[in-house]
């Protein structure tokens, strides 16, 4: 049986998007009462919720670093986030993504201001439809801002993939599964600094350069949405009653 075509002849993707179009984004800030900062993000059908604690004292104490705060990130997929039940215990993939998310956010945070403490980031994937790590990073940076943690910039993230020979922006699940390459990128857009760059599959040098440009454009779009969400949330707080 021939595989389903992922890109139609007139350059549209499975959900009707153009190649360089991102899915509709929705942000909500301050969704959790018990966390110091929190954010919720919808990237198409991908739904992620992030809670942030800290900076606060670190236990066990021997993990503390004398001149900076450490960042502890946990990326976790809910058992109901995918078609087949995902066992709730952290998998190899989730542990790796936790590390990747931590390292994508760490350059943005002024860790040296809070020595011997910790900032905890908990990202929970409610529904997975591709680019979950990107959504987790974008939402986590909003949660950090909501917690009032000093940062150099917000971190925006998006993935680029090669599908049926085309480079496409903001990968969804099916494109990720049947495409030939996947490249998540996170960056601090107003400073033009890349904090995460991964690649699966094969790209030629030219394709890689093009992908990176495309990802930068996507990150900029996400960044605009992040700014808008933060500003409108805090404007509402300001104007309440």
């Amino acid at each position, binding site marked *: 049986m021939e595989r389903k075509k992922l890109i139609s002849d007139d350059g549209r993707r499975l959900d009707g998007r153009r190649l360089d179009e991102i899915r509709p984004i929705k942000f909500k800030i301050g969704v959790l009462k018990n966390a110091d900062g929190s954010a919720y993000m919808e990237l198409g059908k991908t739904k992620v919720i992030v809670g942030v604690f800290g900076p606060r004292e670190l236990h066990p104490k021997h993990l503390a670093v004398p001149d900076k705060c450490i960042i502890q990130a946990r990326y976790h997929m809910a058992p109901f986030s995918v078609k087949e039940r995902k066992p709730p215990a952290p998998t190899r993939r989730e542990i790796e993504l936790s590390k990747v998310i931590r390292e994508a956010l760490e350059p*943005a945070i002024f860790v040296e201001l809070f020595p011997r403490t910790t900032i905890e980031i908990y990202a929970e994937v409610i529904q997975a439809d591709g680019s979950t790590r990107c959504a987790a990073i974008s939402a986590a940076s909003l949660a950090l801002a909501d917690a*009032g943690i000093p940062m150099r910039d917000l971190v925006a993230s998006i993935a680029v993939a090669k599908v049926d020979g085309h480079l496409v922006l903001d990968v969804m699940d099916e494109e990720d599964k049947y495409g030939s390459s996947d490249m998540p990128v996170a960056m601090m857009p107003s400073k033009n600094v890349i904090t995460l760059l991964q690649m699966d599959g094969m790209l030629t040098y030219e394709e890689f350069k093009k992908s990176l440009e495309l990802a930068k454009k996507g990150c900029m779009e996400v960044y605009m949405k992040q700014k808008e969400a933060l500003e409108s949330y805090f404007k509402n707080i300001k104007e309440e009653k």
Partner: protein
Amino acid sequence: MIYFSQRQIVVPGFVLAEGNYETGRNVYKEGNKFYATVIGLAELKDKIINVIPLRGCYIPSVGDVLIGKVIDIITTAWLVDIRSPWNAILFAKDFFSKPIDIMKEDLRKYLDVGELIVAKIISFDRTKNPVLTAKGRGLGKIEKGTVIEVEPTRVPRIIGKKGSMINMLKKETGCQIHVGQNGRIWISGKNREDEFLVVEAIRKIESEAHTTGLTNRVYSLITKRRVVNGKEKANI
């Protein structure tokens, strides 16, 4: 070159200005550009750029008077939660006015876990946790009244310019109000109703912290409530 209007909401990474300015609070400079580090309101005053934070934890500073909560007891000291990234320590010698024999006495008898104290920070330098003292005027264990928590970033607004807001509250309600720099407020009045009235007023200040003419609105709230309370009493 300035890229914001006065008291505009800015987000982390917002490019505030370029050129010949100075960094104030919550602003950092890289190259020739000035960026905000937190979400807050941007302000320019005499070439200094400040961002007044809307969110954030309390950062200890020596001399601050605050309200702490005892979370643990060790042989000669208490560990105190002061809502900052670091727990504070209160040594027994900084609590008792007369020396006591620590080997014989149980510190729990004087100050137990969960109890609240008004204390002052006597040392803090980021390499060591803050150290408190509870000896001095107005400091010590809290025995009665109400303690509430507000966002630490709202504390300056609750105190007001030169204490205008807090003095008005004290005068109008007859309560004693101690505002800890860490966002805990101790209210002690003649009766519960007065205390609740102060709590209501403080909640109003907290939610409208960034509007103008707030002192007057809070004043009218108090007088209005007073009239209602007075009438209730008259009916009984």
